[in-house]
């Protein structure tokens, strides 16, 4: 009759496979094809270079505000590489590396960041969602997609990305509960990059881990070293297996770090110490993977150098293409497109009136 302990369904574990010197725990390392692993590395590096270039372009006023993925490449590419292309990818706004893995063209990202909706164009057969900016608001979409896939007896599952800050939003909470009660085959991937703009992780929530928030929904949840591409891959692979087996959602907290600005409109010197950034630079996910690959003789400094040159050229070309396309995208009437499948009469009238106005001005 007195106070008794209630046994919970789940506990929280922490997973790490690759250490900062490039050494791995061989018992835990997931099987990844050598080519695939090199592709993972290439994508992570491309993302890093693209981020750097975009920062430059933004500072020159050539493109607008964007949110760099720098430092989070392992969390993103590691996760997507563990999934199928038919699986549904539901990003927030910082998933450049994940988007690149999915085959989204750098030129499209550049165009999008230059302020053109055309950059968000998605091929008809793709299962990628466009960027979602309102924090956490994309999470329920992934649950719906996953449920729908299950309803259609497809093998597809869904993954959604969000940040540490997003775990404070109601959308996060409601979506996790839905996923749990409906056993939706979805993976919730929280990139805990330690900051939500100026709010440090420690003040976003009092809970020791963000993973433990999953306990409230009886969702299996774990923390992984998010700068360790193997740990992320392994965790997502396991979650995907569970989802495909009909065992419902998983929550994964990737411990990572936002190595750059929040967005290009942000000035982190107002709120964080450079020392902290330096500390995390030692845990840089790309360097760690490179150490591993070099030890395994799958990569060398020379090869990396050559690869970086190639990526820079790829980005040069992409920006040239983008630049050209921008020159062509002069028609403001595009803003009337795609509001509805069929524009209603009043909207057509507005378009025509504006067209007329432009003609008269022109």
């Amino acid at each position, binding site marked *: 009759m007195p106070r008794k302990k209630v046994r919970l369904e789940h506990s929280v574990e922490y997973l790490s496979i690759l250490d900062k010197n490039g050494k791995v725990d061989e018992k835990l390392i997931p099987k990844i094809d050598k080519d695939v692993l090199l592709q993972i590395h290439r994508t992570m590096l491309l993302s890093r270079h693209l981020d750097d270039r975009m920062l430059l372009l933004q500072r020159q006023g050539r493109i607008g505000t964007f949110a760099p993925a720098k430092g989070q490449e392992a969390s993103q590419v590691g996760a997507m590489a563990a999934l199928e292309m038919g699986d*549904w990818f539901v990003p927030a706004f910082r998933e450049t590396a994940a988007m690149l893995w999915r085959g989204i063209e750098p030129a499209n990202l550049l165009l999008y960041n230059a302020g053109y*909706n*055309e950059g*968000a*164009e*998605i*091929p*008809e057969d*793709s299962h990628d*969602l*466009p*960027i*979602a900016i*309102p924090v956490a*608001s*994309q*999470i*329920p*979409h*992934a*649950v*719906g*997609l*996953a*449920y*729908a*896939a299950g*309803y*259609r007896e497809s093998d597809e599952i*869904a993954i959604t990305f969000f940040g540490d800050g997003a775990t404070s939003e*109601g*959308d996060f909470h*409601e*979506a996790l*509960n*839905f996923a749990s*009660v*409906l056993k939706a085959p979805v993976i919730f991937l929280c990139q805990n990059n330690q900051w939500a703009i100026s709010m440090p992780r420690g003040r976003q929530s009092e809970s020791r881990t963000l993973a433990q928030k999953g306990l409230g929904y009886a969702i299996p949840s774990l923390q992984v070293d998010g700068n360790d591409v193997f740990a992320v891959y392994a965790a997502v692979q396991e979650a995907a297996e569970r989802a495909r087996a009909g065992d419902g959602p998983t929550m994964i907290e990737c411990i990572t770090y936002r190595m750059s600005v929040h967005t290009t409109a942000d000035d982190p010197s107002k709120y964080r110490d450079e020392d902290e950034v330096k500390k995390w630079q030692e845990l840089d996910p790309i360097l760690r993977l490179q150490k591993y690959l070099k030890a395994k003789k799958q990569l060398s400094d020379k090869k990396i150098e050559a690869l970086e040159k190639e990526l820079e050229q790829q980005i040069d070309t992409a920006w040239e293409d983008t630049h050209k396309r921008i020159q062509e995208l002069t028609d403001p009437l595009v803003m009337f*497109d*795609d*509001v*509805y*499948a069929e524009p*209603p*009469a*009043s*909207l057509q009238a507005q378009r025509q009136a504006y067209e007329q106005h432009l003609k008269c001005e022109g």
Partner: protein
Amino acid sequence: MAELNMADAIKLALTQEMENDDGVIVLGEDVGVDGGVFRITEGLLDRYGERRVIDSPVAETALVGFSIGLALYGLKPVCEMQFSGFSYQGFHQMESHAARLRWRSRGRYSIPMVLRMPYGAGVHALEHHSESKEVLYAHIPGLKMVIPSTPRNARALMVSAIRDPDPVVVFEPKAIYRAFREEVPDDEETLPLGQSRTAREGGDLTMISYGAMLQRTLQAADQLAEEDGVETEVIDLLSLSPLDHERFAESARNTGRVVIVHEAHRSYGPAGEIMARLIEESFYYLEAPIRRVTGFDTIVPMFAREQAYLPDVERILDAARGVLND
């Protein structure tokens, strides 16, 4: 052909569309076992099972956001908000995503979802159960918003809403869910979204209304005919967005005198947009200031006084006679 009330007519639409298309999924709080608090979804769970008729946790944001996910996959969710007064919890999902995903993805995705909810006063309910804030949805580009007024058009609009490739918000006038019956064809019937109808013809005065207030407007029109010998044309909007101004502007050009009736609050209520369109489309024909009979800019009072809040036949007659004498 059966005589149905509006609740049953909507149920007929849902049932037939679920039967026609296994992509149609019904979801909401208490829509399954309980059949919905207004019994609109009664019987659907037994017929279509719990994968297609989803009793959800109490969570409107997720309900709307999850529905968007279903729609992204190509399903056709019909999502119920238990009352329009609790739909604001899911409003940001409608504004930020349902309305924009076609646009944001340059047409790759569409959101063929229906968000249906009872709205309006007059059923002796608790606070928040008598709201009429259709403007909040009608103002959002990318959404459509319709409000039926009779069993038959409720059924036809619901079918069209379900089949529409874009998100459609359906406000159901709960005050007349069971107020009267109308013949509703057994066979499928649709109504184009964005099209109003002439509910009564007349050449002396134009009255514009929709939803539960249409009945009162028609009653006033009849009384005007009887008592004043005035023939009123009554336009039933059916759709607030897109708003079909052609019909009412034409009527206004003909009569020169217009009264608008709605139960939404007055300031920034739907009448404003209707008046704007009338100015744009029929200004030179107007012989008197347009009048509006609306809910007041107060919170909808608790039920003992809700009828005082609502436009009634007297207030409509007052305005009509005012306009006729101006």
